[in-house]
């Protein structure tokens, strides 16, 4: 168990890097770049590039526990037993919200009460210690509207991949952080990535297209990633990973993944490396172990079919809580099977994928092009969220209208029952309507009660599919 520690670096929270007292304790960027070079492991960007070139999907777990020694053991065990391509430090929910004091208090009381690793509290020397104890590069995964303190400690730790974005790590993760603030904070992060790139170190900046994870229409996920990617590239980021969450519908998911390189070509400058990342199903997970494992393998197979560079795995304990090491190992090993050379024969209907792709591209264009035309993209984003012309379902934040109502069609693909104020074309809206109408037996306008029931049914899609109707599966 970790011995008591005092707070390091947290005093800089919310401040621009290198401008506050306490920053002296962090090494200069140059030193961190030299450190990474001397570390003798590939950067996350290199691993992603290699995966793409060899036609494999790189595999990465979610993992984070409160105590330092426990975190080190977790990383080592995962590497020894499942050899993921990239490892994760998942950060606890206090740190995400800059509740550093609470993180520290919990850490000192009982690190097991933390749902992630409080890196800021542990400090960058311990970050390096983690980094040095495994061969795979690390990524920081969190959910911080303002991640600057965390990012500084991450860079000082020699960590080469950092998740988040001014929209995707605000709306799903906080209630009352104005979007202009989070965009500004993430612009700071991205600028530092730009400087690091000039110093020769490429940081992989992953955008959290998963958003609120539950029934997110693909064009919403991708549109927000496009906006964040454009902002990141303008700030100097050179490697961008676009994460897309499994909807559960084969054609829709493969189409969405395959759309990512097209979007990159259309909206991003050359010279920016862009990777598609697939998140195994991020919504309500089946409770039965076999069912969860079916979904885990299926997700990994879809990642392969969609040409993702990387997959983020789940475990059969997802429905219950933070997984133990063994469950995490088994999730990774199972997902790895989808990379098997023996599965080359598995294919998906190319025509249907191409058709779906055209629609996704068109919807994304409807949403992002009015924004990208604006001279001040950050301001345009804030305004669009206020008006609902950019929006997400189930927002945790007041700064999105959350008018969108998603619904699964008869085949299980996620469509817009209501697109709220999104500027979708008539054609797109008509197609969404038609696809959804096909799934209504009667076609009558559903009342509010049935709307809630429908929504719950769609949220619990995989529970129903596996016959776990009462939410009580077998573990």
């Amino acid at each position, binding site marked *: 168990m970790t011995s008591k520690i005092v707070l390091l670096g947290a005093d800089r929270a919310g401040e621009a890097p290198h401008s506050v007292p306490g920053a002296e304790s962090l090494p200069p960027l140059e030193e961190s770049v030299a450190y990474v070079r001397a570390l003798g492991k590939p950067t996350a960007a290199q691993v992603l590039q290699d995966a793409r070139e060899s036609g494999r999907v790189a595999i990465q777990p979610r993992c984070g526990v409160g105590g330092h020694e426990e975190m080190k053991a977790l990383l080592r065990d995962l590497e020894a037993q499942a050899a993921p391509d990239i490892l994760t430090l998942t950060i606890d*929910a206090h740190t995400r919200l800059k509740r550093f004091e609470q993180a520290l208090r919990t850490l000192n009381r009982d690190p097991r009460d933390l749902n992630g690793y409080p890196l800021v509290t542990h400090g960058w020397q311990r970050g390096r210690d983690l980094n040095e104890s495994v061969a795979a590069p690390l990524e920081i995964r969190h959910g911080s509207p303002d991640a600057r303190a965390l990012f500084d400690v991450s860079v000082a730790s020699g960590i080469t991949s950092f998740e988040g974005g001014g929209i995707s790590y605000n709306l799903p993760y906080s209630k009352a952080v104005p979007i202009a603030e989070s965009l500004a904070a993430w612009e700071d992060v991205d600028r530092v990535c730009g400087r690091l790139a000039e110093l020769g170190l490429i940081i992989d900046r992953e955008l959290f297209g998963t958003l609120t994870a539950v029934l997110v229409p693909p064009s919403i996920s991708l549109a927000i990633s496009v906006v964040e990617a454009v902002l990141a590239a303008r700030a100097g980021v050179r490697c961008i990973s676009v994460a897309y969450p499994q909807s559960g519908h084969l054609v829709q998911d493969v189409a969405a993944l395959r759309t990512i390189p097209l979007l990159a070509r259309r909206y991003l400058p050359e010279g920016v490396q862009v990777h598609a990342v697939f998140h195994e199903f991020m919504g309500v997970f089946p409770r039965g172990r076999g069912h969860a494992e079916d979904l885990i393998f299926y997700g990994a197979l879809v990642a392969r079919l969609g040409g993702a560079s990387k997959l983020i795995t789940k475990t059969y304990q997802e429905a219950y*809580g933070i997984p133990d090491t063994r469950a995490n190992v088994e999730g990774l090993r199972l997902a790895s099977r989808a990379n098997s050379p023996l599965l080359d024969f598995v294919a998906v209907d190319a025509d249907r994928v191409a058709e779906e792709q055209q629609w996704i591209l068109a919807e994304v264009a409807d949403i992002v092009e009015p924004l990208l035309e604006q001279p001040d993209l950050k301001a345009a984003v804030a305004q669009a969220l206020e008006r609902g012309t950019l929006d997400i379902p*189930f927002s945790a934040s007041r700064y999105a209208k959350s008018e969108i109502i998603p619904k699964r069609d008869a085949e299980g693909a996620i469509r817009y029952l209501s697109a709220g104020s999104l500027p979708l074309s008539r054609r797109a809206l008509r197609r969404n309507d038609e696809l959804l109408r096909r799934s209504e037996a009667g076609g009558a306008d559903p009342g509010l009660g049935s709307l809630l029931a429908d929504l719950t049914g769609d949220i619990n899609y995989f529970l129903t599919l596996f016959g776990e109707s009462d939410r009580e599966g077998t573990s």
Partner: protein
Amino acid sequence: MQQRKIILGVAASDAHAVANHLIAHALRGIGYTVVNLGTCTPVEEFAEACREHPDAEAVVIGSLNGHIHEDLRDLAATKAEGAIRCPVIVGGNLSVGSKKDPAALERLYRLGVDRIVNDPAALPAVLDELRATRPVAEPLLAVS
């Protein structure tokens, strides 16, 4: 007749919004006035809402991310001060990890939680029961 009212929210470090949205919708659907404070709501914000809505029957707090104990750290003190007078109901995923230790629930009661409810569908019955047994003088009509 006045509508029944509750204060709803998600614990301070917790951003899980979906169950919160659905529970609010569902309670409104059966006639409740729901003051929904949404995600990331510290205890003091619940207390403030109680001041603004003295007629609220209960404070209903969801927590999924495992941090409920730290997030409700000030609850007992807040109740002792009288800033929260109505019963506090908590539901969700109430500890970190996949294997659940009942001790985690004990700790919650010690923090000042009055009721722990698993299934949102059980909320109306629990609210009725709390109302029926509440130590206040004013006469109340029990509605189901």
